[in-house]
């Protein structure tokens, strides 16, 4: 009986050549292009088959997501699993997240690997604050996500009480595979949009490190949906015009609690749809 094999899809020029002859054809075409012999429709076809176009933002997110540097920071028994995640057996370098940096200044991902006691929480927060933006937090295991088995006087019941957490990984402790899965989820998130509006969710507008965005108001952020529960931000809006960038500062410098309080006050009147504080947000209207 004769079996007829059907082609599943047309191979794109970026795929591996199917036969030595095809490879030879490609090589000759490339040689012609380098010699300047290709012209007109042939040249167009050649360029189209070999150039990949994208936006700068997407390329940047792709690069960020594929080179996550975790901070060398273990809290409890989950840290053992975190360490074996970089071992030869599990090897997160396959996903670009294996370079544990000894300094938070060089790290952009904080893995909370274990229970956070109330005495440790200020230390964790300080390490988080020392990390440069953009930065992401992975809450690993039941304890750092919710307090876990430590429902007592000494342990913070969920690390997102004191810093913004991007991914929660369940488990007690999660196996290295689970942690790697969490990192892949985080990568998906970063490929979409690196900040996902966490400043809005945590009422932290005005704490941007970027000089431009903190002085003249942050870049406008688009929000999808109408209820706060939707809370999905799809990306930055159009970049600010030159006039916007150099506009005089509408509010005096506020920092820390003052800024947050003033922002919350304003947010009560007008639902906040942008990370830029509303005009007249000091309440002087």
């Amino acid at each position, binding site marked *: 009986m004769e079996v007829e094999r059907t082609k599943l899809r047309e191979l794109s020029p970026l795929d591996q050549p199917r036969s030595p002859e095809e490879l030879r054809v490609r090589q000759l075409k490339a040689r012609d292009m380098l010699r300047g012999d290709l012209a007109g429709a042939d040249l167009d076809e050649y360029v189209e088959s070999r150039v990949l176009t994208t936006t700068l933002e997407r390329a940047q997110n792709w690069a960020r997501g594929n080179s996550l540097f975790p901070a060398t920071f273990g809290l409890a028994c989950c840290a053992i699993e975190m360490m074996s995640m970089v071992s030869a057996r599990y090897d997160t370098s396959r996903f670009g997240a294996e370079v544990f940096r000894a300094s938070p200044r060089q790290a952009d991902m904080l893995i909370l690997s274990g229970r956070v006691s*109330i*005495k440790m929480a200020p230390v964790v927060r300080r390490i988080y604050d020392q990390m440069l933006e953009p930065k992401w937090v992975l809450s690993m295991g039941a304890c750092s996500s*919710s*307090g876990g088995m*430590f*429902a*007592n*006087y*000494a*342990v913070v*019941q*969920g690390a997102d009480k004191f810093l913004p957490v991007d991914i929660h990984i369940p488990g007690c402790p999660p196996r290295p595979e689970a942690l790697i899965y969490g990192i892949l989820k985080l990568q998906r998130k970063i490929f979409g949009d690196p900040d996902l509006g966490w400043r809005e969710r945590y009422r932290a507008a005005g704490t941007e490190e970027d000089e431009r965005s903190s002085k003249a108001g942050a870049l406008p952020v688009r929000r999808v949906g109408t209820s706060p529960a939707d809370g999905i931000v799809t990306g930055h809006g159009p970049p600010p015009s030159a006039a916007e960038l150099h506009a005089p500062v509408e509010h005096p410098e506020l920092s820390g609690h003052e800024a947050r309080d003033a922002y919350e006050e304003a947010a009560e009147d007008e639902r906040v749809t942008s990370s830029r504080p509303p005009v007249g947000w000091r309440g002087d209207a």
Partner: protein
Amino acid sequence: MPDAPGLELIAHEINSRHGDAIVGTAFEHGQAALLADPDQIREILTFLREEPAHEYRFLASVHGADYLPAEPRFAVHYELLNMPRVERLRVKALLADPGDDSLPELDSVVDLFPTADFQEREVHDFFGIVFRGHPDLRRILMPEDYVGWPLRRDFPIGGEPVIFTNTEDTVPGWTK
């Protein structure tokens, strides 16, 4: 380890010198314990440390206890050890709850046993027992700004209610 008659002899010896410093004895599971009047704890421990017949020169541990609802409510346990004879003796100072938010007090023994320094701080940290004359009575394990005495039995256990399928009817604030 003194046996039960030996324990009674020690209690009698202390009481003959220091009034009614020993209010009782307990001998259980081969472990000897003197129940002591907290106001005379220094006299008792000095006696047990210095008297040539006893010479319990090592304070192995100090810990607090809360026996709520029993009365007296608190206790501070001193675990003494005579190293040459490998004999252990426990002294329990029974402390009544003074009520109206004031803290129970007894004398510090840091000058007798320097090891009591950190251990008395720990008892203070978790049970709110004040050691008079302690050189540096601060919290040692909990954060310095912590409020409350977490190992007391009437201290809320903490944590947050978690909704599981078997508790969703009982967790407060949760309605179907």
